[in-house]
């Protein structure tokens, strides 16, 4: 498999990128795992009880769980690992510590600086190993999706030897893991090798003799390596298949090319604080004038689905996909004639005869330029508007976007957990990820209600109402398409599973 680049760390507490996560998937296992359909199944915990208010989870760990060095994996290891992530003095701090904020008092323990409510006593954090096999977790709010959170990388256990060696996760020989594989080689910037962990409780299920990761940045090279047999897996999530090659591969490698919808949305940000996009009708005009079907068929070419909403179809709703329960076609319908009308109306509201110059800001990177050019062309043909495209270096771009220094900017969001909330709470007025300047009291209220509710039906309704405000009423963002994870798997390699997020689980794979 290709990782494209060196994983910045193999410490579950510090990891925050798909490269590190992909390697960690093989090395570690959390309390729960997910099966091929994305259902939560037992991992290190063989069973669990949930209290009626959905605020207390009691996990019962399996007794045969062992670390790669033979030590038993106990509930204390989990308590240690989670409190380590939350430790306010951990250096460097865990960037994904907020994945544990569902736990009672976790946030107030984690944050010391400028926090009057800071809790200095780790014992008040709602995670406790009552004996070697029992872990009791108390949550702040009823969180129906907490079980799926426990399979997240940041919540993996860490061997207690990390206490004495802070640099343990930088070299292969000091990493002790509890998962299906253990690491044997880590040649920095070059390759990583995993072999089966003989102490793993389900070692019979692990069939691969070795997982070999390379770090090749160039997508054309990656494809050539796949085609010459140097790679058995290529493409998403840690690699990439060149867009222009997909159509051909669909013919030549039909059995191997897979296109899997994943829980990420590609959209454009409107800066709702800056002219001309402080006007909702002008925003709507731009959104309605885009032919999304043509965009995914002719430009992105990766089998993506046109998006009219923020929440992608692979996110679960109450009983089935959220999008099936609340279709995005109810949000708006692209229509060039209506778009023209809306533009005229918006201009009138603003008292303009024509639109001021508009610049679309994008970052360098595959495909973004093509998409921007296609959209600019649609806007020119359908609205008669000339939109200038400006490419920016990645971090310069992010800085500008975060400080609302743009008019329209490219954006994309991927799920942190399998719930619409992960796409909705980012647009509340206090969210650190709200980079569109959107402030709506009603929206904030709906999100707050949904956070406090334990009733799935009610939550989904509240979240759908919020999405309506965001898109149908305000068109604060311009949804374009729901991502797919395009990848290729050697036809002899069975049971490699891509989950709803696009992360890949190779631990139960075997060679036919």
């Amino acid at each position: 498999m290709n990782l494209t680049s060196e994983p910045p760390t193999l410490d579950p507490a510090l990891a925050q990128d798909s490269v590190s996560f992909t390697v960690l998937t093989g090395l570690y296992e959390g309390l729960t795992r997910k099966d091929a359909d994305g259902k939560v199944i037992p991992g290190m915990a063989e069973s669990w009880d949930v209290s009626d208010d959905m605020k207390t989870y009691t996990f019962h760990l399996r007794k045969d769980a062992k670390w790669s060095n033979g030590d038993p994996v106990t509930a204390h290891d989990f308590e240690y690992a989670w409190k380590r992530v939350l430790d306010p003095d951990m250096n460097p701090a865990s960037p994904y510590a907020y994945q544990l904020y569902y736990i009672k008092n976790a946030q107030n323990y984690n944050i010391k600086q400028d926090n009057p409510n800071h809790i200095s006593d780790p014992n008040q954090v709602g995670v406790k190993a009552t004996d070697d096999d029992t872990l009791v977790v108390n949550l702040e709010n009823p969180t129906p999706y907490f079980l799926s959170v426990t399979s997240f990388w940041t919540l993996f256990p860490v061997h207690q030897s990390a206490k004495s060696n802070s640099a343990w996760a930088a070299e292969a020989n000091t990493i002790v893991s509890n998962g299906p594989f253990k690491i044997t080689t880590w040649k920095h910037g070059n390759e990583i090798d995993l072999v089966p962990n003989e102490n793993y409780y389900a070692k019979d299920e692990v069939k691969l003799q070795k997982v070999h990761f390379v770090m090749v940045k160039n997508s054309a090279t990656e494809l050539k390596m796949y085609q010459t047999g140097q790679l058995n897996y290529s493409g998403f999530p840690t690699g990439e298949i060149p867009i222009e090659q997909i159509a051909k591969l669909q013919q030549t490698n039909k059995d191997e090319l897979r296109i899997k919808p994943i829980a990420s949305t590609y959209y454009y940000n409107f800066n709702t604080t800056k002219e001309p996009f402080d006007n909702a009708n002008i925003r709507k005009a731009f959104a309605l004038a885009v032919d999304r079907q043509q965009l995914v068929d002719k430009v992105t070419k990766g089998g993506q689905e046109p998006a009219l909403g923020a929440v992608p179809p692979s996110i679960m709703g109450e009983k089935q996909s959220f999008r099936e329960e609340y279709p995005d076609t109810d949000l708006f319908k692209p229509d060039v004639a209506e778009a023209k009308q809306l533009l005229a109306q918006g201009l009138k509201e603003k008292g303009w005869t024509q639109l001021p110059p508009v610049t679309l800001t994008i970052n360098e990177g595959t495909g973004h330029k093509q998409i921007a050019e296609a959209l600019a062309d649609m806007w020119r043909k359908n609205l008669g508007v000339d939109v200038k495209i400006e490419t920016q270096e990645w971090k310069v771009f992010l800085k500008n976007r975060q400080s609302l220094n743009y008019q329209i900017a490219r954006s994309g969001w991927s799920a942190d957990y399998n719930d619409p909330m992960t796409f909705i709470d980012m647009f509340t007025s206090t969210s650190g990820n709200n980079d569109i300047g959107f402030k709506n009291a009603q929206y904030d209220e709906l999100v707050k209600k949904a956070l406090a509710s334990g009733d799935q039906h009610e939550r989904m309704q509240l979240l759908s109402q919020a999405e309506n405000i965001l898109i149908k009423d305000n068109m604060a963002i311009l949804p374009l398409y729901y991502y797919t994870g395009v990848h290729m798997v050697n036809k002899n390699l069975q049971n490699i599973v891509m989950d709803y997020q696009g992360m890949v689980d190779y631990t139960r794979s075997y060679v036919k």
Partner: protein
Amino acid sequence: MKDTRANGLTKEMFRKLSFRPPAETLAGESVPVWRDVLRRLASSKLAMSGVVFLVLLAIMAIVGPLVSPHDYYTNNLDHTNEPPSSEYWFGTDSLGRDLFSRIWMGARISLTVGLAAAMIDLVIGIVYGGIMGYVGGRTDEAMNKISEILYSIPYLLVVILLLVVLEPSMWTIILALSVTGWINMSWIVRGQIMQLKNQEYVLAARSMGAGGARMLFKHLIPNTLGPIIVTLTLTVPSAIFSEAFLSFLGLGVQSPAASWGTMINDSLTSFTLYPWQMAFPAVLISLTMLAFNVFGDGLRDAFDPKLKK
């Protein structure tokens, strides 16, 4: 004192190099030299074919986009990645845009950028390198080290800074390319001057009272013309490709405009499927460079009376 000397030179040097080829002093002829050079240049068939090609190229860059039935920016998503045909003479790109128009629009950008960057490198490089080599000693040491420091500063950082400070435009690209582009040229000139300044005829001229500036630009620089022209012919294509890199980072031509460099860049992942998307710009760059080279060679030979046969 050295400073005034250096300043006085810039202007004079420029004139001499362009209009009064200094080889004249060596040949010691009295006919206007440029006419002589031109005559010799014109008699070289190879050099002239280079000139003819360059003129054709310039004409196409101007009229090319006008004669094509399609403009360079309109997408035609039903005709993407088409091979050359009677409708699209050079085929289409991944958004169905007409490559014929794009090639000649790209020629405008690439040729302007390449030539402007090369000229700036030439002027700064010769003056800076000339002074380093001729004055020598501590001045040389200091100027040499300054150029090495500039050369070592991470170019990417400079580019990102320019990107933040300046609006993207052709001039920004040329500026970005010139910040460090001249250094190689100056080092080549320095090395040549150091070698030449101790040769007999230079020592003789000096003992006859020839001044520093006159010495440098009349006697020394002309004799380093060979390496200078060779370096110059290297600068043009490297500027064309650096432009693609700068555009990629957001400094430079912005879409839908294209240059030869960005066209090649864009076609890189699909050249096995749609070879024409890479072939047209790549072949044109190579032919242009060949034309510059035969012209450069002819020019050099024309300046050098020793080679007359």
